[in-house]
C-alpha cells in the first residue's frame, strides 16, 4: 500500500536534494519538469542541475534557496507507491515539520556528515517521538564531503542513537550513509562506501514494514447526517463519517457517545453502495435500528470494543505551539477534536519539553515552536482515546477565535 514519507533535519542538510534525487533516479520526473529545473538551476544557481528545485517550487524558495512550506510529491516503483512531504528545516517553520510528520508512516531525518547532530536534528527526533511516527530513517548525508569516511558515519549514528534512546518514547533508528547530491545509496548502492552493508534508501523504503494500527474496536465520529426526505427513502437516516479503530458489520451493537444509548447496525453504505461490513479508513454511512438523536460530533463506538474511549471535558495533552502569540494559563481557544468543535480553557501548563536535552522544565507560557504539556477544560465532553492507542481519537487542534489561525497540534494522553 501507499507509504507516506516526511523529510526532517536542519536547513541545508539536503532534504530537498534527496527527494529530488529519489524522483529523478526513479525516472519519475517528466521531461518538461526537468528542463524547467535545468533552466531554473541556471537562473538561481551556478548552472549545475539543482534537484532541490523539483520540490522548492515557490518563487521565494528559489530566490532564497530554502524550503518554506511543505511540498507533496507522488511517485511509484514496481513495488510501492509513495507520497513524500518535503518539509522545511528552519526552526521558524517547525509547524510545517509537525504537519508533515503527523500524517506520515516514515520520517527520514537527515544529518550533514560534516556537522553531526544539530539542535534541529534533536528537535525533529523529539517531534517524531511525540507524534508517534512509526519508523525513522537516519540518513547521514553529504558523505562525499567527508571522504565517505566510515568512522564519521558511526560516530554520528552513535550520537543519534543515544539521543533517540533517551526520548520520552524511544525511537528506533534505521541508519544509512548517503550522498543526496551524487546519488550514493539513494537508489543505487554506493561504490564509494563498500563498508556499508545495508540497503540503499529506495530498497529500504520499498521493503520496510509499517507496524499496523492497534485494533481498539470500531469508532465512527459523525460528520453529517444523511436525510434524503424523498418518498423512496422516507425513513432513511445515515450517519456519515470515516470508520477508524476496527471493523464494523451489520448486526453489530454500538453505543452512542457521549449520550450512552445503544443500538444495532442495520445498514452500511460506502459511497451510496450497500455493503455488509466496513474496514478502518472507509468513508461510510450507517443506519441504526433505533430512532436515536444523533448529530455531528457524536461518536458511535462498538459496544464490545477491546478498548473503550473516555468521555471527559478535562484533557491532558502534549502540544506543539505554532504561532507567535504565546499560549498562557487561563487563555481560551477553539478546540477541534474529530468532528466536534468546542471551546477550551487552558487550566495549566504542566511543563515545557526541552528538545535539545530531552528533559522537562516548568513553564508559565509556551511560545512559537515550543513543545509542552497542557491541561485543558473543554466546554463539552469529548470522546477521547490515548493518542498512541488510537490516533484519530487522540489528535486535536487549537484555533484562535480572533484570527481563525490553527495554533496548535495536540496529542491527547489522558483525562484529568
Amino acid at each position, binding site marked *: *500500500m501507499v507509504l507516506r514519507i516526511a523529510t526532517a533535519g536542519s536547513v541545508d542538510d539536503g532534504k530537498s536534494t534527496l527527494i529530488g534525487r529519489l*524522483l529523478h533516479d*526513479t*525516472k*519519475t520526473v*517528466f*521531461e*518538461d*519538469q526537468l528542463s*524547467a529545473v535545468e533552466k*531554473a538551476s541556471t537562473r538561481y544557481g551556478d548552472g549545475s542541475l539543482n534537484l532541490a528545485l523539483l*520540490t522548492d*517550487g*515557490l*518563487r*521565494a524558495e528559489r530566490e532564497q534557496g530554502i524550503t*518554506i*512550506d511543505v*511540498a*507533496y*510529491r*507522488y*511517485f*511509484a*516503483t*514496481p513495488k510501492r*507507491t509513495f507520497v513524500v512531504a518535503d518539509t522545511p528545516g528552519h526552526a521558524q517553520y517547525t*509547524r510545517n515539520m*509537525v*504537519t508533515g510528520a*503527523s*500524517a506520515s508512516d516514515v520520517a527520514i531525518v537527515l544529518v550533514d556528515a560534516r556537522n553531526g547532530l544539530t539542535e534541529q536534528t534533536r528537535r525533529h527526533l523529539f517531534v517524531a517521538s511525540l507524534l508517534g511516527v512509526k519508523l525513522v530513517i537516519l540518513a547521514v548525508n553529504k558523505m562525499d564531503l567527508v571522504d565517505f569516511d566510515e568512522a564519521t558515519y558511526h560516530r554520528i549514528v552513535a550520537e543519534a542513537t543515544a539521543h533517540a534512546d533517551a526520548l520520552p518514547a524511544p525511537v528506533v533508528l534505521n541508519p544509512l550513509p548517503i550522498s543526496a547530491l551524487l546519488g550514493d545509496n539513494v537508489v543505487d548502492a554506493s561504490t564509494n562506501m563498500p563498508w556499508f552493508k545495508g540497503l540503499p534508501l529506495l530498497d529500504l523504503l520499498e521493503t520496510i514494514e509499517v507496524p499496523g494500527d492497534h485494533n481498539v474496536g470500531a469508532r465512527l465520529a459523525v*460528520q*453529517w447526517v*444523511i*436525510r*434524503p426526505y*424523498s418518498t423512496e*427513502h422516507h425513513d432513511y437516516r*445515515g450517519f*456519515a463519517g470515516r470508520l477508524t479503530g476496527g471493523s464494523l458489520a451489520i448486526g453489530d451493537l454500538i453505543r452512542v457517545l457521549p449520550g450512552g444509548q445503544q443500538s444495532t447496525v442495520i445498514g452500511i*453504505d*460506502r*459511497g*451510496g453502495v450497500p455493503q455488509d461490513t466496513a474496514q478502518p479508513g472507509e*468513508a461510510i454511512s450507517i443506519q441504526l435500528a433505533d430512532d436515536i438523536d444523533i448529530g455531528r460530533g457524536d461518536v458511535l463506538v462498538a459496544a464490545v470494543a477491546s478498548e473503550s474511549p473516555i468521555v471527559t471535558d478535562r484533557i491532558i495533552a502534549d502540544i*506543539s505551539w505554532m504561532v507567535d502569540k504565546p499560549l498562557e494559563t487561563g487563555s481560551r481557544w*477553539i478546540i*477541534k477534536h474529530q*468532528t466536534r*468543535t468546542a471551546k477550551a480553557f487552558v487550566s495549566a501548563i504542566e511543563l515545557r519539553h526541552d528538545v535539545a536535552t530531552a528533559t522537562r522544565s516548568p513553564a508559565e507560557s509556551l511560545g512559537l515552536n515550543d513543545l509542552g504539556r497542557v491541561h485543558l477544560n473543554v466546554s463539552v465532553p469529548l470522546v477521547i482515546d490515548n493518542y498512541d492507542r488510537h490516533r484519530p481519537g487522540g*489528535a*486535536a*487542534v487549537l*484555533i484562535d*477565535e480572533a484570527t*481563525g*489561525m*490553527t495554533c496548535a*497540534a495536540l496529542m491527547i494522553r489522558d483525562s484529568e
Partner: protein
Amino acid sequence: MTMIDSGTQATPAEIKQSVAELEDEAITIIREVAAECRNPVLLFSGGKDSAVLLHLAAKAFRPGSLPFPVMHVDTGHNFDEVIVYRDILVEQYGVKLIVASVQESIDSGRAVEETGPRPSRNRLQSVTLLDAIAEHKFDAAFGGGRRDEDKARAKERILSFRDHFGQWEPRAQRPEPWNMLNAKIRPGEHLRAFPLSNWTELDIWRYIGIENVALPSIYFSHRRTVVERNGMLLSVGGPVVLEAGEMPFEEIVRYRTVGDASCTGAVRSMASNVDEVLVEVAAARITERGATRADDNFSDSAMEDRKREGYF
C-alpha cells in the same frame, strides 16, 4: 508523477483498493467542508477532474442529494462538446448550476480583455470567480486541483485560506496536522477545498474507468482541424485566429485537459477509450499542463502568480 506505472506489477485488485482509499479520503473532505461551511459551492469546468469531483460529491451524500450548487466560470472560449456535456450532467445529477460569465465581467468593465494577437481569458477567470463568490456569499469553493499538476499546487493545503482580496499567501498557510481541516473564517474571507489533492493524473483515469464517470467526447481521439503554435496543437475556429503564415491541418487528437479553448492544446492520440488513455498516460513523458497549456509555459511561476490572484 506516474509514468512508471506501466511497469508496476499492481494487480487490478490492488489498483481498485488504492483508488478506493483516495475516494474515502475525498468523500471525507467533502463531507467535512459541507458540514463546517455555511454556503459552499462546487466549481465545475467540465474537465475530467471536476467530473470526478462531482461524481465523488454526489456519492458522499447518497441517497440524499447534493447539499450545495455547482458553478461554472464560463470564459466564453468553450469547446461546444463541453457545454453540451455540462448541461446533460447537471440534468442527470439534478444539481443547481450557476454560470459566472467572464464575458459579463468584461462587458461591465470589471475585467479587461488581454490585448495582443493571442488573448487568453484564463487569467480573467479569477476576477469573475471572486466576484461570483462575493455575490453569492459562498464561504467555500470546492476545486478539482491536484498537487501533482504543478509545483505551486504541490504546496497547497487541502482546505486553503483566501483573504479579503481572494489572495493565496503561500507563506501564511494554516497547518493541517493529521489532515484536520480548520474551516474558521471571518466575513469576506473564504476557503478553497481540494478533495483531489493527493490524486495523480493516472489515479483520475483509473477512477474514471472503474466508476464509469462520463466525460466530454474531446478527451478521446477524434479528427480535428488544428494549427501548430509553439509546439502546441490548437483547434482552429472559435477563439483561435489564424495568423499570417499559419497553415491549418487535420489531425487525430484528444485533449488531456480542458480549459480556455484559446490556450488549451490537443495531443496527437489514437486513444479512443479509457483503457487506451490509461496506457498513454502511464507512458507519458510530459506533464499534462506542460503538454497542453500555453499559458503555464509563459513563465516558470505562472501558476503561483495566478493562484496568488485568486485563481482556482
